[in-house]
């Protein structure tokens, strides 16, 4: 049992990240893609890596208010991520719809459709906040491994 636990402690140092854009204005995506990986705010030091395929991912970052059009596609991509996984909602859009709230075209809050574990509010959130969100997600992920 002890060996398994120590292996889990090692495994938790390698969370790979996948981004899903569920109708975001791209503001959050720019923060995630460029800010979190540029010299100043380096998520790679947590062992993170952005991956191109959802099948490689451990932590899913969803941004955007989830428009009606992308619901189906988002669900399908989300199901492609193998267990155990953790979901982080980035931006205020997934929480309440943000500036798109009360629109006929959006389905926010997205936790009606996806099991959101961590919310990172902000429009867009600061890179530090995103990294903190990822760090929180890693804590949750450790329990699920």
């Amino acid at each position, binding site marked *: 049992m002890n060996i398994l636990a120590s292996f889990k402690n090692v495994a938790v140092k390698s969370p790979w990240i996948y981004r899903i854009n569920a109708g975001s204005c791209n503001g959050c995506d720019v923060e995630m893609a460029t800010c979190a990986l540029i010299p100043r705010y380096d998520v790679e030091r947590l062992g993170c890596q952005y991956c191109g395929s959802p099948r490689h991912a451990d932590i899913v970052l969803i941004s955007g208010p989830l428009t009606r059009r992308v619901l189906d596609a988002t669900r399908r991509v989300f199901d492609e991520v*193998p267990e*155990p996984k953790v979901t982080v909602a980035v931006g205020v859009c997934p929480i309440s719809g943000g500036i798109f709230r009360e629109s006929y075209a959006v389905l926010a809050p997205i936790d009606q459709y996806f099991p959101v574990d961590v919310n990172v509010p902000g429009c867009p959130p600061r890179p530090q906040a995103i990294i903190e969100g990822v760090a929180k997600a890693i804590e949750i992920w450790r329990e699920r491994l």
Partner: protein
Amino acid sequence: MSNQIAILIAVFLFPGGLFALALGLGLKGADRRVAARLQGRVGPPLAQPFFDLVKLSFKTSMVPTTANETVFFGAPVVGAVSMLLAVALVPIAGVYTPPTLLGNLLVLLYLLMVPGVALMIAGSASSSPYGALGFTREMMIMLAYEGPIVLVVAAVALHTGALQGGVVTFSLTEIVAYQRANGAFLFDPVMWPAIAAFALFFPANLGIVPFDIPEAETEILEGPLLEYSGPALGLFKVMSALKAVVVLGLGIALFAPFGPDGILGLVTWLVEILVLMLLGVTAIRLSSGRMRIDQAFGFFLKWPLMLAAASLVAVVAA
């Protein structure tokens, strides 16, 4: 009997198996760390590739419903095993000579092609359109780099053979022994074009920028690897870690087998391989962008082929 045990040790413990795996993962870690530092980031810990591997073993493996399951899981196994054998074929100057029973330079060349083929099969077995794209790209780039590498190896084999008074020798052990007695080919002008051709070959064989076209993650989402997850993906990571050791080790054995006998020789070899990795892989990876497949194809049929042929002609004429 003792021969079989020697082979088993060579394949599973040293220099193959555990040792090579640790070295390959360490090299990848060093590559990522140095790359991050050069970009002004902190970067991941040195053991990061090892963490990744452990993590992948905890994940579930998913199989696409349209995929052929046997082939889908067979491909990574074949790739990893071929590299396990290949490492045992690479001599380390003054430390390790591969058992003759295992094979020679030609066997090694064939084994070096297997990972590419495994990736191609994996891509097509996954039945994803991106996998199929990766398949065609992998095939094209293999066609492009196989020519030059065969010529490079032929040049070295003929050169050693002629210098030894024979015609040609395909035994890596003899090639290394000759260089240790008479000076490395690194200082032999006849071999310089071949060395340049080899330097261009190994980024393509290892699948890194600018020749990572078959696995371009921003274009075709990692191509053949797209549908893989969990332990099967881990096996592909093992394969590429071992491949780095094989290709770099082959380069050292062919052109620069320095180092005294014993433990110091091993240390020299490790330093050499690390320097090669950082200069030949990290530096190139960071300072260039990805080529298009037609550009890469044209490039390989022009420069490396010409350089390797130049060496070969010089060797034959001499």
